[in-house]
């Protein structure tokens, strides 16, 4: 109970904010913090808990985003259907990536995930007949809950918060359960784990598939919230790195870590955008320079992330 207290406080606070705050800009920031946190946590399931570092997770995010957008524009379906379809497509893709994770180790696997996401990027950008090509798809706003046409940002906070808590619970399960222990063993030393009867291959595939599905849900909800799906952004390597960054800064393989990491990353980004956005698009790049440097510094000096750093200081 003690260990999850900080997380409970975090989510409770997030849930209470909309009751007190009306400013749409602040609410928007909170929504993005929770959303990128959830996506980072979803990545963390594969990258942190299962030890399968992928830099191509944008493929799942994009699949979810497109599923939601296409459900609305092409077939007039509820975007919730899009969420399900996106999750299904991502899970299927996740199985393929999972298969690759058993054939390829280390850098080969990372490269493969990047290649996959780029194939999807190019496919989505060029396949005009299906995805409206590189112009992207504007997501139609149809008022109502089942069409996820919600103008009130406070409701969005709670929807995304629900998603965040869902992903957090999955992470928690991975920390406490039998499968979680086995996965930790696989992460530490796959062969030793195999020798102890741990079904390493199957666990890795399962972790990646779950991670993929949850990432897609994030993508689908993001698309509905933001209202526009641009293939070059949604399948970009930048987004994949952003998921990893949130998890690493916050604490790889910890449940709350990605959310804390997202707080840091999103607030810095929003602040810098606000400060420099007007001066010229170039300055917006400053926050990305900070990301890059932060990544280099963090993995070298504080690989346990914020959570680990704080945890080490709190431990007697």
């Amino acid at each position, binding site marked *: 109970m003690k260990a999850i207290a900080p997380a409970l406080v975090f989510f409770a606070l997030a849930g209470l904010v909309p009751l007190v705050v009306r400013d749409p800009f602040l609410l928007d920031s909170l929504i993005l913090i929770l959303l990128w946190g959830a996506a980072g946590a979803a990545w963390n399931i594969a990258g942190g808990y299962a030890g399968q570092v992928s830099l191509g997770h944008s493929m799942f995010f994009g699949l979810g985003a497109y599923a939601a957008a296409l459900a609305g524009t092409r077939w007039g379906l509820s975007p919730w259907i899009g969420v399900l379809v996106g999750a299904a497509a991502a899970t299927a893709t996740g199985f393929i990536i999972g298969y690759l994770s058993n054939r390829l180790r280390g850098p080969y696997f990372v*490269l493969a995930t990047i290649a996959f996401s780029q194939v999807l990027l*190019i496919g989505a950008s060029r396949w005009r007949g299906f995805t409206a090509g590189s112009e992207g798809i504007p997501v139609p706003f149809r008022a109502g809950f089942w069409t996820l046409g919600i103008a009130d940002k406070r409701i969005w906070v709670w929807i995304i918060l629900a998603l965040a808590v869902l992903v957090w619970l999955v992470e928690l399960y991975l920390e406490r359960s039998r499968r979680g222990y086995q996965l930790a063993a696989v992460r530490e030393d796959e062969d030793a784990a195999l020798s102890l009867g741990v079904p390493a291959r199957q666990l890795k595939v399962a972790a990646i598939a779950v991670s993929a599905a949850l990432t897609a849900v994030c993508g689908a909800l993001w698309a509905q919230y933001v209202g526009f799906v641009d293939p070059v952004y949604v399948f970009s390597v930048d987004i994949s790195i952003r998921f990893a960054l949130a998890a690493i800064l916050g604490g790889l393989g910890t449940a709350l870590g990605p959310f804390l990491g997202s707080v840091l990353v999103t607030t810095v980004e929003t602040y810098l955008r606000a400060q420099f956005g007007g001066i010229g698009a170039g300055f917006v790049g400053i926050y*990305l320079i900070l990301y*890059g440097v932060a990544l*280099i510094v963090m*993995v070298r000096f504080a690989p346990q992330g914020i959570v680990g750093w704080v945890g080490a200081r709190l431990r007697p």
Partner: protein
Amino acid sequence: MILPQLIVSTILLGGIYALIAVGLTLIFGVMRVVNFAHGEFLMLAMYLAFWAFALLHFDPYLTLVVSLPLFFVVGLASYRFVMRPVIHASHNVQVFTTVGLSIALQNVALVLWTGDSRFVRTDYYSMVVRLAGAVLNLAQLIAFAVAVVFTAALFAFMRWSYTGKVMRATAQDRDASALMGIDTDRVYALTWAVGITCVGVAGVLLSPIYPVYPTVGLQFVLIAYVAVVLGGLGDMAGALIAALVVAAVEVIGSYVVGTAWKEVLYLLLFIGILVVRPAGLFGTRGAEALGT
């Protein structure tokens, strides 16, 4: 007759890709590091050529003379401050270090020079040479020639020089080399610097041919990685041959399905190799599962 044109284009393109890929595979072969920032150094070299041209009216081939020692120093410096601390760390740490470097460099370029495309428009940029029924762009031809000379020099160095042998020894067995008295840290510094110099040269050679913008590195590095994996990570000769194969796929693919989809072709080739024979055409089977 389109064939001579395709062949010639392939060779010219392949020569440049080879230079990029060979440096990348050298770094992996000796240091076991996957350098995700390789493309960014290429981008910086292209910008160097551009600004030298725009501000000082230096012809790129003049800049080449400067870029060689300059990028060697850049290589040594980036090794010392960024790579050396993590050279013995876990593979994930190394991946994120080079990824972080890549993001930082891309955005330094973005902040300093904006996202606009820049192009080195030399007087001779549209000059062509006719050879055996094919039309070659002069700049491409020169780029190819220099790339070949440089790559050949690199091969010779690795094969016959003492330092080259030392580097190959370290690639084969890090610990044994250290036990033999080889200063592995210096070998790594040198390897990294040589790899960076290769892209430094390649970038300048590319500047009269391709436009430069902050993210141009990604496109080339992905191509380079396809060549590196196809040729077998660490295998320089393999990377060379594979670079030609990738260039062929791109050129022929461009011709058959058009430029819009050609990137998909080599990406699919890449995924295909990874699935079927990840060790590449020339690598030892099973090397990819060891991650070493």
